[in-house]
């Protein structure tokens, strides 16, 4: 089997397994898995910026929330349908990332991290400040009538799971295609060394801005889908926690790997789910997991596997 065929076969096998899981898993875990798939799309977007292009952002909660509110507000206020609302969310994530990137990408490294954090905090405070429009801290429930896509009721378990799977599969295929394309290689080149990339004729600002916008589209799509599938839109999704979560997923699963964000989201979600069931100090276990990760697999699980032999992993 050629390298490309093996790569696509692996990713298709994962999609097939996730499809089969719907018929095997109890409802509770199937719902969890739907949530994980949407969060994995968010993390995939984060990975495109951080893992592939080297942009360590602390502002992705804003892109996620932009997608979520751009989907939710027209539904809440004007009764827009689920399909167009989802599309709005996707566009909003990319537009927000573009607007932030135009300013934040004039900095680099730690400064970029701080500037993106600052923008995200401003976004969160804006949501709270305009509480009458946005629902503020309490948020709002998305009308069940709007939670329909192509005739399917997304508030039901099976259509919701399948919608999450479809989004995940599309996002993963897009990510796989992108990182294997010449532009994907340029993103990695930029991460490795901006100066060297410049010597080949690439404008670092434009390449990084493009990568950030694509990342924002992913985050916006995930935010919009999350609100639509699980029926709630709230300011809590714009807090710093939602900037850190995708970073943790990516670090755990493997930065710069296509499947790493999903693996990281899956493991981290269940680590939190299980440990929070018997202690309120679940963050202790998250911390311990990260320490172990740094000690034994600093490139994340798939990053380490790739380094130790499976070099074909994208």
């Amino acid at each position, binding site marked *: 089997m050629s390298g490309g065929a093996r790569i696509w076969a692996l990713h298709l096998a994962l999609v097939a397994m996730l499809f089969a899981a719907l018929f095997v898993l109890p409802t509770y875990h199937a719902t969890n898995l739907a949530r994980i798939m949407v969060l994995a799309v968010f993390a995939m977007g984060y990975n495109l910026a951080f893992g592939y292009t080297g942009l360590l952002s602390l502002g992705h909660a804003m892109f996620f929330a932009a997608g979520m509110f751009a989907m939710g507000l027209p539904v809440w206020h004007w009764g827009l349908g689920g399909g167009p609302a989802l599309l709005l969310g996707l566009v909003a994530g990319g537009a927000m990332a573009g607007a932030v990137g135009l300013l934040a990408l004039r900095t680099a490294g730690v400064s970029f991290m701080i500037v993106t954090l600052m923008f995200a905090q401003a976004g969160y405070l804006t949501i709270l400040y305009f509480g009458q429009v946005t629902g503020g801290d309490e948020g709002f429930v998305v009308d069940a009538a709007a939670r329909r896509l192509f005739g399917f009721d997304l508030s039901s378990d099976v259509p919701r799971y399948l919608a999450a799977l479809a989004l995940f599969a599309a996002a993963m295929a897009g990510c796989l295609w992108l990182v294997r394309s010449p532009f994907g*290689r340029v993103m990695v080149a930029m991460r490795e*060394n901006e100066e060297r990339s410049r010597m*080949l004729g690439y404008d670092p600002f434009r390449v990084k801005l493009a990568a950030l916008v694509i990342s924002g589209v992913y985050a916006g799509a995930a935010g919009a889908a999350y609100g639509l599938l699980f029926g709630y839109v709230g300011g809590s999704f714009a807090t710093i926690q939602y900037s850190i979560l995708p970073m943790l997923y990516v670090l755990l699963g493997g930065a*710069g790997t296509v499947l790493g964000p999903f693996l990281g989201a899956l493991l981290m979600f269940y680590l939190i789910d299980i440990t929070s069931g018997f202690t309120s100090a679940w963050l202790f276990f998250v911390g311990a997991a990260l320490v172990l990760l740094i000690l034994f697999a600093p490139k994340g699980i798939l990053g380490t596997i790739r380094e130790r032999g499976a070099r074909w992993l994208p």
Partner: protein
Amino acid sequence: MLRVEGVTAGYGPITVLRDVGFEARAGEVTAIMGRNGAGKSTLLKCVMGLVPATAGTIVLDGIEVHRLPAHRVPHHGVAYVPQGRRLFGPLTVAENLSVGLYARDGGPEVRAAVLELFPRLRERLGQVSSTLSGGEQQMLAIARALCLEPKVLMLDEPTEGLQPSMIRLIQDTVLRLKDTGVATILVEQRVDAALRVADAIAFMANGRIAETARAADLTPEARQFADHVGV
């Protein structure tokens, strides 16, 4: 082809190049020689736009290269292979080449022509570039630069630290490039290497071009080498 006139440049308050001028002609190799700290590498970086010229002009086929941002310079036909190879380590040979090709929308024919010059790279297309030998890394660095289809190729000590067989191979490639009409600017410390491949030699001292000569007029014992290179 490439004319550098009266260029002054440096890093912040420190002036490294002073009133530098030379010309690189199509199909010729121009070697830049001089002691450490003479300004040879800074001169290449200045042509590339990485170190801005505070005075003077750098003109390539009528285009004022010194006015361009660094990332636009390669689009006008200048390629640069810096000292120490500088590949994108985690990418494979094929991926490194594709980054070069994508920059100028180079097609498969450009890739094939480049691999024709370096058949050894063809055997290692799927290999991660950081695992190549030093010589192979240098070949890849030059190959990636050639993917830009340059009019001017600047090589900063390309044979530094390589074994003799690899040095000869790199030199042979530089000689073959002359036939394609590329103007090569070669920073070189080794007299024998410069005399073998260069058509013209510019000797630098204290940030200036102290002297220029045709390589054919020089022998390894020539005064210029003793005066400006210290051999």
